[in-house]
C-alpha cells in the first residue's frame, strides 16, 4: 500500500477518530500514515454491531410477548451472549439460561439481581425494565 492508497473515505464506526496505518512512502520506506477509515472495515464492523442489535430487538419482542425475561434483552444490548454473561457473573450457563425465563427471573433473589446488574454495568432496579 502506497501513501496515496491509504483509505481516506471515512469509516462511520470510528466515530470521527483516525487511525494510524503503515504505508510505503515515495522512497520505498514504510511509515505510519493517518487514515480516516476504510469502507471494508466499516462493513465488517457494522455487521457485528447490527447482529447484536438484531438479537436485542428479537429479545425485546420475546420479552413483550412474555416468553423471555428482560435479562435477555439487556445481555444482547450490552453486546454479550450466554457464555460471556455466565463468565461475567460467575454463574453456570444453565443457571443463566434458566434466569432468562420470565417466571424464574421474577423470583430472583436480590443478591443475584445485583450480580447481573454489576456484570451489565447498570442499576439493579433497571434490570427488569425495557428502555
Amino acid at each position, binding site marked *: 500500500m502506497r501513501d496515496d492508497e*491509504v483509505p481516506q473515505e471515512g469509516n462511520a464506526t470510528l466515530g470521527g477518530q*483516525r487511525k494510524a496505518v*503503515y504505508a510505503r512512502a515515495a522512497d520505498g520506506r514504510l511509515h505510519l500514515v493517518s487514515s480516516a477509515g476504510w469502507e471494508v472495515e466499516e462493513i*465488517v*464492523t457494522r455487521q*457485528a454491531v447490527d447482529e447484536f442489535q438484531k438479537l436485542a430487538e428479537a429479545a425485546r419482542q420475546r420479552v413483550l410477548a412474555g416468553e423471555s425475561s428482560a435479562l435477555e434483552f439487556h445481555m444482547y444490548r450490552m*453486546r454479550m451472549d450466554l457464555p460471556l454473561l455466565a463468565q461475567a457473573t460467575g454463574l453456570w450457563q444453565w443457571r443463566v439460561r434458566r434466569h432468562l425465563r420470565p417466571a424464574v427471573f421474577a423470583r430472583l433473589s436480590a443478591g443475584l439481581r445485583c450480580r447481573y446488574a454489576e456484570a451489565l454495568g447498570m442499576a439493579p432496579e433497571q434490570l427488569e425494565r425495557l428502555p
Partner: protein
Amino acid sequence: MTREFVHRQASHCESGAISGLLAHHGLPLSEAMVFGLSSALSFAYLPIVKINGLPLVAYRMPPRFIIKGLQKPLQLKMRFETFRDPASGERRLNELLAAGEVVGMQTSVFWLPYMPQDLRFHFNAHNVLACGRDPQSGDYRLSDPVVEELVNCPAPDLLRARFAKGVLAPKGLLYYPVNRPQAPDWARALPAAMRKTTRIMLDSPLPVIGVGGIRWLARAIERLDADRQAEHARMFVGQVVRMQEEIGTGGAGFRFIYAAFLQESADLLGKPVFGELAERLIDIGDEWREFALATARMIRGRDPLRPALLAARLRALADRETKFFRDLRQAL
C-alpha cells in the same frame, strides 16, 4: 522519574504500548522493531475458541507475547501485578502514578468511554498506558496507543475495564519496567527473532497455526453453505476480516508492520536482502487487503456470496507466505 511522557499513535496496542514505555525509559525502539524483535507475527485459526459463537482467527501471537518476548534481548525486567479485588488494584495504580511511574494496563475495550461506540466489544486484551491523574476530577490521563491524542478516563470506568471478566480477563494487570533496558546485540537478536517467526509460520506441530492454519481456514470457508445458511456464512467470513482489521494495521493482518521491521533490520545489519524480502511482504499484505475487500463486497451483497472463491484466495496467500518464510529462513 518525572519526565513528561510523549504520546505517539501506533497501529497496534501492545507493540505501541511497549514502544512507548521503552522510549520513556531511555530506549527508543519503533513499534515495528518491538513487534518483529518479539517474533509476534503469526497466523492461527482456532475453531475451538469461540468469540460470539464464531471461531477465533489471529494474525499475531497471543496477548502479552510481545512484552514477554522482549525481556531477554533487551535485558529488560518487567514487573507484572494482578489483583484479587478491584479496590487494591486501584490503590496500587494510584501509588505508582504518584511515584511518577508510567504504567501499562490490560483493559477491556467495551468499558473505555473514549472509544468509538461501534468498536466497543468485549475484547479483554487492550493495552493502555496510564501516565497521570487530573487533580480536580480524579480522571486518569491515558495514552491509548491506537488513539491520536492523550485521553481522560473517569476512575469508575477504568476500574471496570481493568476488572472485566471473561476470556483473557485482565484481573487488573499492571506492568512497568524496573530496570533500564539495553539496546540488544542486533547481529544476534534480529536473526534469532526472525528464525523464531519462520518456525512459528512453517514448522508448527499444530495444523491450525502458521501457513497450515491459513489452509485449514480455507477448507472451513469452502465448507460453508452459501445457499441454506447464507447468514451464518456471511458472519463467519466477516469475522475473519474483522480479526484482520480490528484496531487496524491497515488491513494487512500485521504483514505491513513486519515488513517495516525487515526494512529496519536491513539497515541495522547492512543486509539489503531483508529490504527485498520486505518488498515481497508488502505485496503479500496488499493481497490480504484484496481478500478483505472481496469478502466485504460479498457481505454487502455487491458480489454473490461464493465461499469457494474466498478459499482459493486464502490458498494462494498460504502458498505465497510459505515461499516467503522459506526464503526468509534461507537469508538468515
